[in-house]
């Protein structure tokens, strides 16, 4: 136990604590609550009907000005904007123009800057953004929203993004798992029952891609598949397609499927191979001698014995596929993106870190369930690394 402790502590700091921080981010956001405390207090007495009291306007005017001075207005504005599109501009404009206003009545002053301030929806959004602990990122990640009366409803059809994407990710992962199985099963069989010397050579052909940099393999597929790429050139040269009929095989779903199947195939072949190697050829010969056709012998005798390998390989490929990011990002174009790419988008582009964390948490739970299943069926300590 003492020997494991240093690593556990290390992982606790470098891995578990980061995951915990991410989970916390998905439900906790103090920025607005810290920047507009008096405004939020004043809003507590507001019944949500009509406009809030003058006290709320006065507090908001003062605190928006202070946030501008403290340079945190942008952060407040972007959070309000996520609840109601357009509010970022309202906040920043108000911060800029309020500098010229020195006295009340504040409701009129703020309404003069932007009419959004006399729309109750704006204040609902401010109040919601001011919650320190919130479930809205999870609602958002499930294409749901909280209505002004507090009830939860699905987003309108055209704004549902994440559930369809989650669905797409599952389907794509499943398709890739099936491709890997169909391609991997025969070659695992070939390697497992070849003479040792040849088996070593063939196994090396599987391991070369396994060890080759992922970015290199992705680059190769771009080079091969692009419109002016090697495969299209070849097809044109042998006259199968015309020069103007070149196929679009990359920067779309095709690119994602092909490249990911290539990347994940070794993870299918290796567990299959190690299971198949332990099946004595005697079994098949015995079946044949008892009059079974090769197809029957395969179905009744061989296939059932390889099921543990099929399960291990498929689960591993599926687990790796649903969290894949790099390959779809580079060869997926806009139609070949998966859920991880959306996490990256919210991390890096929209900066909606709460939503990124919520999407990440959902993905993490999915992977965790599959991982536990894998452990139950295969045992994690038997995870295969090329033997």
């Amino acid at each position, binding site marked *: 136990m003492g020997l494991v402790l240093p690593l556990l502590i290390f992982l606790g700091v470098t891995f578990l604590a980061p995951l915990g921080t991410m989970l916390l981010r998905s439900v906790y956001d103090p920025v607005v609550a810290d920047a507009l405390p008096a405004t939020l207090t004043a809003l507590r007495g507001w019944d949500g009907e009509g406009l809030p009291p003058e006290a709320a306007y006065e507090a908001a005017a003062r605190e928006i000005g202070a946030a501008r001075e403290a340079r945190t207005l*942008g952060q407040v504005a972007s959070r309000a904007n996520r609840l109601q599109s357009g509010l970022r501009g309202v906040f920043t404009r108000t911060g800029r123009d309020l500098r010229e206003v020195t006295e009340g009545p504040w409701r009129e002053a703020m309404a003069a800057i932007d009419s959004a301030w006399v729309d109750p929806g704006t204040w609902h959004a401010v109040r919601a953004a001011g919650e320190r602990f919130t479930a809205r990122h999870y609602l958002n990640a499930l294409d749901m929203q909280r209505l002004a009366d507090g009830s939860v409803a699905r987003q309108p059809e055209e704004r549902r993004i994440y559930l369809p994407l989650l669905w797409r990710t599952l389907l794509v992962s499943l398709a890739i798992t099936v491709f890997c199985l169909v391609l991997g099963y025969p070659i695992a069989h070939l390697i497992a029952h070849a003479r040792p010397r040849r088996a070593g050579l063939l196994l090396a052909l599987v391991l070369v891609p396994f060890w080759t940099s992922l970015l290199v393999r992705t680059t190769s597929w771009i080079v091969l598949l692009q419109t002016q790429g090697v495969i299209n050139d070849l097809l044109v040269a042998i006259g199968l397609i015309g020069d103007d009929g070149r196929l679009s095989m990359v920067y779309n779903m095709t690119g994602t499927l092909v490249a990911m199947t290539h990347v994940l195939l070794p993870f299918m072949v290796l567990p299959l191979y190690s299971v198949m190697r332990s099946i004595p050829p005697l079994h098949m010969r015995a079946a044949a001698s008892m009059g079974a056709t090769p197809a029957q012998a395969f179905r009744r005798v061989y296939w059932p014995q390889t099921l543990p390998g099929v399960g291990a390989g498929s689960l591993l490929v599926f687990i790796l596929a649903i969290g894949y990011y790099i390959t779809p990002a580079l060869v997926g174009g806009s139609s070949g993106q998966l859920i991880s790419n959306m996490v990256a988008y919210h991390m890096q582009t929209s900066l909606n870190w709460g939503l990124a964390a919520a999407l990440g948490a959902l993905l993490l739970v999915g992977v965790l369930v599959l991982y536990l299943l894998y452990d139950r069926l295969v045992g994690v300590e038997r995870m295969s690394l090329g033997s």
Partner: protein
Amino acid sequence: MRTDGAATASARASAYAALIAACFAGQAAAQSITAVSYGGSYQKASTEAWFEPFTAATGIRVEVEDFTGALAQIRAQVEVGNIHWDVVDLNTSDVMLACDEGLLEYIDAEMLPPGADGTPAAEDFVSGTLSDCGAGVVVWSTIYAFDASRFQGARPETVADFFDLERFPGRRGMRRVPMYNLEVALMADGVPAEEVYALLDTPEGLERAFRKLDTIKDHVVWWEAGAQPPQMLADGEVVMSTAYNGRIFNAQVLEDQPFEIVWDGQLLDINQLAIVAGTPRLEAAMRLVTFASTAEALAALGRRISYGPARASAAPLITTHLETGVEMGPHLPTHPSNMTGALWRDWAWWVDHQDELNERFSAWLAR
């Protein structure tokens, strides 16, 4: 034997420590700031025209990092309080938006040097090129270009041709942002340049722009970095692409590419240099902004890539292209022959709408 092993191990360890030390020492030895630009030929031109002369003059090293123009990374740095970019090159609406959000330091126009002819800075800068947080540098434009060798018969001439899949089949390159795409969609749909923003301000106008984009969506390859369009055209990945005019110019004169620019429907814009708020290297950053926005520095840039200067007194200094001797005038976006059907970007409108439209645009892309 064992002591031998230990000796090699410790020798290895100390060699390794020295290597690490060498890596970190590089940062401490000379002062260094990070400037952010757009990669490719514009970055090369800015490095030669601004950053290298600046280092020669002041001894301050400039690390150049590339980005694609998005504010996200600046927001992220300011939000987590870990600022590693100092000087950024942004378009005007981004400067104004980021300034309001508190992402940028204020830049006092009085601190900027006078023009080449002695005109005070505030008058030398063309109107619209100075703002609270930025010092204007270049006037540039988004246009679309095509590879002339791929069009035997009719060639694209108007902005509407970009959307005409029947006469000009093939894939198009477009930047993966709503800016320019919305404007160009309306202009291609027959809206005169001067009415574009009034129409975009209405829900129907926006809807119309997206509907127009729908008509070519399946044939679009989206780009993010300015260096991509010339590459995609050269590789034959697209038959025409929207692009920054200077990138196409450089491909024409430096790489002899048979590219042609369609100026009709060009969208003019101004880029400014700005400083990320809270940078610990504020003084050096300010020196770089002052240095790069002198008339001489702007002219040095304009003789390397076809972007017009933000200062009036720099214009006469931009004569010929340094490397090839090509006359620069006709290649600048503001040359009278290029201005028919041109549109200036409405910065204020974009400041108010860009977040909302970025979101709507990515949702539209994902559908």
